[in-house]
């Protein structure tokens, strides 16, 4: 895990396209917030592997959002229940319910539906937000962080040595 964090810090501090890191986070958000054993997550994993996104960011993001998912489950359940019982959408849900593919996707489960909708809604805003954060971080924070006493102490510890160990790995993951 330390190596994973070190690797992520290296990518963050490198010239890697911010979009690749942000997209990794956003895909990890879907994977983490929605129940893992859902059909759509197979597509998300395929995208993570096929699209050149940072895998370390993916894994860290997945761990992070999985933790958040436990807290947000009641909210997802509520959203899912409201959406699935909307009279206006009953026709749509009924036709999806009669499709084998969607039944396999467990779309009629309140938490699957709630968490998936939540992830989709926040996908683009978070993508843009992460991009901005990474850019600002590189311009304003990185240099300042390097000079702080904390960072100096940090450089002396095991984590930093690990960071050094992988610093020669070049390119993005």
């Amino acid at each position, binding site marked *: 895990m330390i190596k994973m964090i070190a690797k992520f810090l290296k990518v963050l501090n490198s010239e890697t396209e911010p979009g690749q890191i942000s997209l990794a986070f956003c895909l990890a958000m879907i994977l983490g917030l929605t129940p893992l054993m859902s059909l759509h997550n197979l597509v998300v*994993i395929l995208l993570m*592997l*096929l699209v050149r996104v940072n895998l370390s960011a993916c894994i860290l993001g997945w761990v992070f959002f999985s933790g958040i998912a436990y807290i947000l489950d009641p909210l997802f359940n509520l959203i899912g229940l409201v959406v699935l019982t909307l009279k206006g959408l009953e026709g749509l849900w009924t036709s999806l319910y*009669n499709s084998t593919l969607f039944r396999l996707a467990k779309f009629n489960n309140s938490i699957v539906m709630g968490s998936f909708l939540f992830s989709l809604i926040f996908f683009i805003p978070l993508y843009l937000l992460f991009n901005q954060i990474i850019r600002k971080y590189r311009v304003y924070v990185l240099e300042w962080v390097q000079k702080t006493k904390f960072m100096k102490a940090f450089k002396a510890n095991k984590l930093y040595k690990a960071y050094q160990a992988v610093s020669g790995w070049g390119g993005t993951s």
Partner: protein
Amino acid sequence: MKKWIRWQGLGVFVIIVIIVFGFWYLFIDGIVERAIERQATQAVGAKVELESADLTIFPAGLHVSHLQVTNPDDPMKNAVEISRINLSLEAAHLLRRKIIVKEMALDGIQLNTPRKISGALVSRASAPPVLKKEPKKRPQEKITFTAFSVPDVAEILEREELESLKLVTSLQGDIQKEKDTWRMRLNELPDRKKFNEYRSRIQQLKKKKSFGGLLGTAGDIAAIKKDIANDLNRIKQARQGLDRTLASLKGKYDQAKKAPLKDVERLKKKYSLSTQGIANMSGLLFGSRINDWTQKAFMWYERLKPLLEGSVKNRKHGEPDTSLRGKGVYIRFKEKEPLPDFLIRTVNAQLQIEAGDLEGSIKDITNRQDILGIPLTFIFSGENMKGLTSLNLSGALDHINASRSKDTVNFTVQGFNVRDIALSKGDQLPITLNNAVVDLDLKALIKGDTIVANLISKLGSVRMETGAKDTGGVVMSSIASMLSTVSRFTLKADITGTLDKYTTTLDSDLDDVLKNAADNAVGRQAAQLEKDLKKGIFSKVDGPLGQAKESLSGFDGISGELAQRGKLGNSLMKDLRLPF
């Protein structure tokens, strides 16, 4: 574009998918085995074990070998043991997360088999709460009758207060009291001495001859006449009073004379034997067993019922299924071809019972009949079995509308050989059914919670043995003797009420036969008792009653005396007629 796509990722994805499916293929049998054991154990409340489970993909199916379901009430026995279960699944429905079993074959089903180790759960915390019902009070297996021995007549007469004796004693007292009263009253009434005084006065008046004397004499005569008339009137009133007293005492005497017979009737009624207990002898002999069977059948029915109706009743489309914490809820929508999540279309089963093999099928097993719209039906039959000519079991469990469920069961057995069954274990009248050939026909209908069941069993080639002891008396001996001659009888049982509170009514022609035998014996006993009671009571009452009669005759003297005094008075009145 090349900057954003890494084609080697696709390869990695394929490898991951292959690894996942490989893992699934290697370990799924164990997972299925444990899942079946865990879920079934939780449902039954006792260990459910299987030797192996083999899931096949092409064709989709499952093969289970040696399934053992522990009886939760007797953990050292299996309620059911099945050698092999083969089921074929409709694969297309699996993708829709529906388990639709096209056909299920159960081979080597055995009931109530012994276990090597206990199948009780160490901790039953995870087991579903089983409603323990208070066992119903079972009819006695020991047959006892309230009064089949009559106490000795001397004992009865010692214990009982005789009305007749009380009346005679009271009569004697009354007679004595009245006698004393009348003796006193006789002394107060004008006696011979008084009438002799009147006679002397009349003689003196007759001696007066002068005119003046004659005038005075007339006045005196009128005065004497008045006095005598008054005395005669008192005597007359006394005689009337005495007549009334005598009439009353004679009435009481007549009453006392009849009283012993009334005592005999009363005591005969009280101490005679009753055949009331024999009126439902079949209930005493078979009630306990039928009650046991009914309770067991109801217990299994109550356990199966929730499995037929699912966890939520009458759900509509668009309404959520039961919520599981952290797992969300599944919302159901209208399906073009509605099917429940779990359905076994056909089960072909071979049941091995002691008498031989029973074969049959069960159709449309599901926990959501409301979706399927078809009731569960079953039919089993067996022929030419050991000690059994034929057996047929069929029925339907209709829970399409859970609130208006309707279940029917028809069960017929022909030529079932019954041997050595203890019908009654009591000391008073132990009865063993040594042999019988039974034809049985059961029809049961359960509508909601209401049950109507009718059982007709015809027993032929009956041989019953009784061990009635001499202490049971004449009636017991008669019943025992009659039972040993019974060769056939019919037993009808009607069960009505609700599953919680039902009544079992038993009726049999055996009751009439036994009641007649008992009635005759009781009749003979009653006649003897009457004879003995008459003898005993009359021997006690006859003496005092004779004394009372004698005392009554004592009033003749008083009556004669009063008559004599009246005569004297009347003759004096004649002497007073003028002219002297």
